[in-house]
């Protein structure tokens, strides 16, 4: 009974969070200075007369009071009539549908790779704490993580795409080739490699450090010393006692990273001309494209919230005490 109540409370918290996100998504773009007129009227926007300008704003409901615009926004959101982008002149659904898969491919691949290698290297470093191999890993990972993303991307392009010609410079696939099946898959993977490598190299440090420090902290815990004293095998201590508990902060970082990678890969997507959501949102901000901003931020926020929800469930599975706490 108490568990059900807690779950309901948890669900209610998520619903409130979604409502807040919906409202913030509406308010934030409108708080920015500027307006989308140049995209609605074209490059010679300065030639609009006062009446023409008002007529145009009225056509897109931009002259209405903010509460009225908010009600329209909620109505469109619920009825899934998301309308057209001001700047791209296409249905927002179509635009997002064309972008989300690429972002998910890049973001999820990056998270899988960086978390896997970060964890493996973190365990290795923690087990060899203070030795040269630990210090060496720490230095390398910290060094890689300190690069600005655009710079690292450019270096990878210059070396692997321009000099060695191993990978393409830009895009998510080769345009106009008619590839299909395995060819298409290989082409997509080829294009994915450098942006993925950039994001992975930049993110790996977070996982490495989290895993390393968690393990080092746990290794000194009384129950680990007791387990060693009981003569339990090293493997059991390492994986059953230490790793499982170290996973909690690791998963927290992983879920937080998802939000960053989904929306924060803007620079990497721009450098590699990768058609993802990050770049789309950046362009929408510059264009003050309110509808596109609202809904693209919403999609990202919902994905992040969904993964946070998943993380909460995983905490309860990994550490039963989480479910028991009030």
């Amino acid at each position: 009974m108490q568990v059900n109540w807690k779950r309901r409370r948890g669900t209610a918290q998520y619903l409130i969070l979604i409502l807040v996100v919906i409202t913030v998504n509406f308010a934030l773009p409108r708080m920015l200075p500027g307006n989308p007129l140049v995209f609605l009227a074209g490059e010679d926007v300065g030639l609009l007369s006062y009446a023409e300008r008002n007529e145009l704003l009225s056509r897109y409901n931009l002259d209405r009071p903010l509460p009225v615009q908010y009600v329209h926004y909620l109505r469109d959101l619920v009825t899934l009539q998301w309308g057209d982008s001001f700047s791209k002149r296409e249905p927002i659904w179509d635009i997002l549908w064309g972008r989300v898969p690429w972002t998910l491919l890049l973001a999820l691949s990056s998270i899988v790779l960086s978390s896997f290698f970060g964890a493996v290297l973190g365990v290795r470093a923690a087990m060899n704490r203070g030795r040269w191999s630990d210090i060496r890993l720490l230095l390398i990972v910290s060094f890689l993580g300190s690069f600005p993303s655009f710079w690292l991307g450019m270096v990878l392009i210059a070396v692997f795409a321009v000099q060695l010609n191993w990978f393409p410079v830009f895009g998510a696939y080769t345009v106009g080739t008619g590839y299909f099946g395995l060819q298409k898959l290989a082409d997509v993977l080829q294009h994915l490699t450098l942006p993925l490598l950039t994001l992975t190299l930049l993110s790996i440090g977070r996982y490495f450090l989290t895993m390393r420090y968690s393990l080092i902290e746990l290794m000194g815990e009384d129950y680990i010393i007791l387990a060693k004293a009981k003569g339990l095998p090293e493997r059991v201590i390492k994986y059953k006692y230490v790793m499982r508990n170290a996973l909690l902060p690791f998963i927290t970082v992983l879920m937080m990273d998802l939000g960053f990678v989904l929306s924060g890969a803007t620079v990497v997507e721009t450098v590699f001309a990768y058609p993802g959501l990050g770049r789309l949102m950046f362009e929408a901000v510059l264009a003050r494209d309110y509808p596109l901003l609202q809904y693209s931020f919403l999609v990202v926020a919902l994905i992040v919230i969904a993964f946070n929800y998943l993380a909460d469930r995983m905490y309860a599975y990994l550490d039963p005490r989480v479910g028991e706490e009030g």
Partner: protein
Amino acid sequence: MKNRAIFNFALVVLLILSSFIGMPSGSMAEGKVSELQIAIHRDENTLTPFTYVTGYPGAAVLRLVFDSLFILDEQNQPLPWMVADYEVNAAFTEYRISLLPGQFWHDGRPVTADDVAFSFSYPLTQSQTRWRRIAAQVESTDVTDELNLTIRLKTGNPDFLSQALTDMPIIPKHIYENEVDATMVGEALGSGPYRLVEYEEGKHYIFEAVPGYFRGDALVERIVMPIIPDITTIFQALTAGSIHATTAHVAPELVSVFAAERDIAVMSGPGLATTLLQINNEVYPFTLPEMRRAVMLALDLQELVDVVLLGHGDPGSLGFFHPAGIFGTDAFVPERDLTKSNELLDGLGFLRQGDFRVDGNGQPLSFELLVAANNPLRIRSAELIAEQLKEVGIDIRVVSLEPTTLDERVWPGFDVSQERNYTLSIWGWSAPVQLRPDALIQLAATDHAMGSLNLGGFASSEFERLAERFITEMNADARKAIIDEMQVLFARDIPLIPLFYQQVIMAYRPAAYAGWVLQQGEGIINKMSFLPGFARAGSAQEPQSDAAADGRDFLFYLLLAGVLGAVIVVKGRKKGHAS
């Protein structure tokens, strides 16, 4: 078990290598280039006259798909295009046009005088200001037959041919006539030399040459335009051979790099885009012409050109127009004179206190200079201006802002009647402004409709009188004389300070295609670059096979096969151990 793993590995290798078979390869008709990859540096939407975004590269690429009655040639002089014959009356109110026969829309229907008449009326119902501004001048259109019509203007305009008939894209009546909102037409169906066959939002455009185009078949059969927003990536791709040309102009620091590249050629010409120091004439002390003059005299424009543009540009003319342009003269290119600048500032009572001056109230002569954060050349210019003005005791604080925020501060709501929120800003106007005979009126007239680009709030009754004379004057020489007078007034009163005109520099791979025609101030992406009779001689060459790319493919497939094979072998071994 081991045998099975090896078999699996071999199978994967075979499968992957088999994918090489049947890879599509470009075919080429005799004397033509089968395909060019030209990177475009922005997404210009569905590329119709009502959905494209920017003047450049949007409108430039649009003109590959849509024709206009006249085009601008290399020197920006009007050239009849769809027109066989034309006649203009003495009052410049009637333009009689005869169309060339044999023009077709990309869906096969013939282009008629009805379409042309429709093109000059329909934009009035739409919000696209560029075409609406032209259509608003038209009183009526009189279609005589399939190929003949007369366009009647509300008032005489001698520049209608060079300004409007070269600009207005002719659109198909049968596509647009029932559309209330033209932006809903997603298909870019024109009558130009290229048909847009594919557009993927944020990814690419693909164009195919229209067979039997009335000005001759295009020399490049297919143009693939990947959308690459990052300029550095574009030039990396050009160096790698992944693209053959680009709409992006080469940054000054890359010119020497490309000049040293054997496979890349560079073309350059005078640029007509103007970078200027925009002054808010309504904010004290810039309300005083002497103050504006003192600032102008303290600036070293040649240093800006040498340091910021590495010499690839020309210093600004106080008359606004580029000295090499249609209306410009080099008489108004200023010389730095610190002594005179100091004298003017002293005369205004702004006396030095330490490094900087103070006004009569003891307030330091210190101003914010706003600049767009996404434009490194302008940021560097602002820094140099700050250093130069420091020499005469003016303190400049450079503030870089997100571009739309800057727009809102300098040009709030894109409406000059709204209150401005800046003192100084590094600003710019695109090349077409330099081609407008009435550019100075737009930049300085106090009437908000006429002076729609008067971002500084400049006001001068003397200038207003010149503007009135210009509007009513129909004689070409007399109009040019009035423009000259306006430039003299600009040089005297300094409503703004043109800093420089950056050269247009384009880079391309000549082995792929060398027929490029550089249109002054614009670039190489224009109809002339692709059509016989205009494209430079010896242009039709087949692109060299990209051996490096083939090698890259092979390496990648080999790598993929290796990884998959290794996974299978390791897995097989583990299973073997387990069993």
